[in-house]
Every structure is written in C-alpha cells, then in structure tokens.
C-alpha cells in the first residue's frame, strides 16, 4: 500500500502550516487550537509547539470529541455505540479565533458535528479549519483553510493517518 507521507514529510508539513497560520493571522493574541479526537488532538499540540518554536507565542490548545454530535449516531442502531472520547477545552472560546484541527478531511460530516459542538461552548470570532490530508469527496459545503497535502482518492480507498502519540509512528498510508 502506498505511503504518501513519512515522518519527515509530516514534520515539515506541520512547520509549513505553522508559518502559514502566523502569516495569515496578523495577531496571535486571540488564537486558540482545538483538535478533534483522536488524531486531531496530537496534531493541534504539535502545531502549538511549532508556532512556539517560531515566535515563542503560546497558543492555548484544547481537545474536542464529536461522537455525541454525529449525524449517523442513532440512524442504524446495530452493534455497540461508538466510544465517547474526552472533550477538554480549558479556556473560554468567546471572542477567540479558533483553529480547528483534524487529520483527514473527507465527507465534511465530522467538521459539521465539530462546528455544532463548538458553538455550544461559546461564540468565537471565527473558526478556521486545518487538516493534514484532504482526500476530497465532500458531502457538505465545507472547505479547509490550511491543508497539509491534497490526496486524490476513490471512495473505496481509506486513508490511514498514524501518529507517534496514538499509533507509535508517523505515517500516512492509502489502503484499498
């Protein structure tokens, strides 16, 4: 199966995105990072570290679990319910500029759920979307503001992002 990103490539991509974030947001004061469970969370932490390495600015970082907001949750009730992860946003998001972080952007339904969830925590000034991989096939009108890599796929394929924090190593692989 083709590996489309290795550890080195992921590291350089995150550094590039950190630079883009700094470039596009004139002031970093109101900026916060929120990672979507599970792999968006370590990605958000790494982006915070990368931004800090560039200009010593600490960006507050939180974790968001969207399981309870999924639109397919109660539609086909067979099998066990999905595991609910931790949400931990230890700061107010009112009047903040949120950078929402996830590993793969596909149908857009996860992001829809995340937007619903975030709005219940407060009223941010803006929400921007950061993804490591955009694999296309959107089902909702959602677009990422920062993309690590565009990977053309067919719907029958799956994109597996592995990160050291969750999977022991950094790698992006396409599986048939």
């Amino acid at each position: 199966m083709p590996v489309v990103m290795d550890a080195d490539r992921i590291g350089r991509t995150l550094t590039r995105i950190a630079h883009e974030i700094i470039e596009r947001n004139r002031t970093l004061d109101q900026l916060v990072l929120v990672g979507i469970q599970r792999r968006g969370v370590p990605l958000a932490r790494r982006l915070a570290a990368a931004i800090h390495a560039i200009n010593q600015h600490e960006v507050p970082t939180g974790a968001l679990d969207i399981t309870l907001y999924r639109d397919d949750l109660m539609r086909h009730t067979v099998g066990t319910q999905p595991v609910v992860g931790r949400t931990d946003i230890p700061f107010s998001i009112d009047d903040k500029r949120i950078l929402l972080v996830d590993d793969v952007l596909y149908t857009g339904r996860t992001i829809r759920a995340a937007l619903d969830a975030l709005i219940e925590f407060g009223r941010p000034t803006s929400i921007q979307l950061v993804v490591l991989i955009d694999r296309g096939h959107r089902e909702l009108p959602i677009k990422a503001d920062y993309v690590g890599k565009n990977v053309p796929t067919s719907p029958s394929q799956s994109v597996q992002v592995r990160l050291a924090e969750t999977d022991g190593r950094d790698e992006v692989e396409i599986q048939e």
Partner: protein
Amino acid sequence: MKKDLLSINDLSRDEIYRVLDTAVAMREIGERPIKKVPTLRGKTVVNLFYEPSTRTRTSFEIAEKRLSADTLNIAVQASSVQKGETLADTAMNIEAMAPDMIVLRHQSSGACHLLSRICRSRIINAGDGMHEHPTQALLDAFTIRQHKQQIEGLKVAIVGDLLHSRVLRSNVLLLTKLGAEVWMSGPQTLVPRGLDQLGVRFSPTVDEAVEGADVVMMLRIQQERMQGAYFPSLREYYNVFGMTVERMRRAKPDVIVMHPGPMNRGVEIASDVADGPYSVILEQVANGVAVRMAVLYLLAGGVEDEAVA
C-alpha cells in the same frame, strides 16, 4: 449491551468498564455553559415511578434532558394505577405510544423483568423492591474509581440493613465482578439468606468489617419495608452499628465514606461522618447524572443479544 439493564448481571466486566469510561466523558458535559448534547434527539424516555424518589428520578430526568431526549414522568400517585390498573396493563398502554425507553422504579422485586418480557422499549431498572438498583452500583463504582483509580483489590465494607437493600445486591455483584474484597456487617436479623454464596465476608461486628477498609458504604435503615421488630430501638442500632468518627479510625487513613441516600442521621451514620472530610456522599449524587447519561447512551445503540433483538 443487552436490550435492557435489569441487573448488574446483564453487564460483562468489559461493559461495566465501558459504562464507567463513557461516564467520564459525560461528566464533562455537566461542566459546560450549555449542558446539553443532541445525542438522543427524537428519543422518548418514560420515567415510571411506583415509589417515591427524589434523587433517582431527578437524576434520570436531568441525564435524559442533557442528552436531548424527550422525557415524561409518570408518578403513580397521580395516575390510573390508583383506579386499579395492573403494572402490565399500564406498561402496554405506555408501550402503545411508542417510547424508546422506560425507566422503572417499583416496590416489587422482579417488576422490571416482567416489563422486559412484554415491552419492546428498552427497560432500565431504577430500583425494584429488595432486588437490584444497578445504576446506583455503577455510580458508586464510578465514585470509588475517581478516588482510588482502580477497584480491584480494595477492601469495601458495607454496613447496615442488608436484608432490604437493593443497593447492596447490585453493589456486591458489581464489586465482586471487578475484584474487590467485600465485607459486610449488620444485625443478624437483617442478614439475607444465601449471603455466603455471593463471595463476600460477613462480620457481626462493625469494627472487624471496617478494619483497614478503603471504602465504607453505609446502607439506610429501611423502616418503610420493615414488617416486624428487627432490633430493639433506633438508639440501640446506632450504638452498635452506627458509623461514628471513632469507628472510622479503624479504616485506612484515606478511606472514603459513601451512602446511597436518603440518610438517617444519628441512625446508621453520625452527622460528623456524613459531613466529614472523607464523605463523598454528594459526589455520588453528582456522578449519578453522568453515569445515567452513559447508560442511556449505550443502551440506545444496537442489541448484541440477537435472541432479544
């Protein structure tokens, strides 16, 4: 998960941990500015209560509302049960209006099992007679885990009216399943038969049961269920079995004291124990909402036991 939650025996060890882990996530929702998630939108939950209850009924209702379910409460004192309708008929009539879940509290042991047989709705046992109260045992386990990290290997002393307590039965099943060492104490007249088959130790003296305990769980003296004289007086009960600060000294220094409520202060528990630093009684109440949200969420999924589905 099975279709219904009637007894702790309906849950495997893994499923108990799944409930407890999910409850950790649910607890966080209660700390948000908007304490609500859309998860059970469009689901109808009927709370059918044949016995007075403040804590459990309120707890279930808050849990249901935080998950966006439509809830309605049937307090039997103001319903057609007063006109002579049987439990089965009441249940069938509620069932005809197609609810998704029924939360039942009933004075007869086994009432939930009856409903489970005749209803398509998911049944959650909120206490049936002297039988079981599974969500109470789950919230107790959640509270213990918060303080002690794990349940395996802990010494848990349960003291009080062992005979009439459904909280006791559910807790013993759960705690032994998770590997705790369970001790009990109470008047010989209030010890149910067959206690020794549950894998627990009994001591006629509170001091021995509490010695070196990590958790002390007090049970209420259930005067409303007592149809006879089980002990001479409440005063004497307190002197022999009441949990006092002196008795608590025999437990581990980091012991926690639990009580499922409502408390009889000065009967099974002294006020300075109930309000003392080791008391987690109000935390139990707070955790009840999170644990019940977890149960509602997990039961709303698919049924693994295909015979029932």
